């Protein structure tokens, strides 16, 4: 199954480009980089300089850049804003997590 905005929360997040757009910790807003590791409660993001920051998933909104494939227009950029609480589980358990419809709407396209 190809990575798409609909199945992002069930898919592999390590390796994607991301940015912290909203957080209860104001100093974390604007952190931009590549996700290199994932645990149950945190994502570790590698900045361009080489530093790594560990960021809690809860109370945080992430803006993911999806890699463009053949399916979408070439050159177009697809960004998905995800509430971090939807990602709150271990990476191997995220495949089968189910959410109610009302929560699913919180994934902005």
């Amino acid at each position: 199954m190809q990575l798409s905005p609909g199945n992002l929360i069930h898919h592999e997040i390590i390796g994607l480009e991301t940015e912290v757009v909203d957080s209860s910790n104001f100093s974390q807003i604007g952190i931009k980089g590549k996700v290199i590791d994932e645990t149950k409660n945190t994502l570790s993001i590698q900045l361009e300089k080489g530093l790594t920051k560990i960021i809690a998933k809860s109370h945080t909104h992430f803006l993911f850049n999806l890699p463009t494939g053949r399916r979408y227009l070439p050159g177009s950029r697809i960004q998905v804003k995800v509430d971090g609480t939807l990602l709150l589980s271990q990476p191997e358990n995220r495949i089968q997590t189910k959410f109610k419809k009302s929560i699913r709407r919180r994934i902005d396209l």
Partner: protein
Amino acid sequence: MAAQRIRQLFEMADEIFKQDPMMSKRYVYLARRMGMRHRVRIPAELKRRVCKECGAYLVPGANCRVRIKNNMIITMCMDCEHLMRKPFSKTGI
């Protein structure tokens, strides 16, 4: 989808190995856990790239030694010096 994610994780482990071997070990660990959880087998060609003892990602020439002896592929992990033996037969000759 689990099988696809396992392959992705192994690809990333291969990419990151030059800079950070510990991180590739972590990716392999995640891939193995995903296989166990969803009862998906790790493909045979990727299975022999992992040390069965310490779980390290093995790259021939960097951290493992591959030799052929007595119709067996013998892979030695240079981190923990564990030997993995895999027999093969000379069919098709």
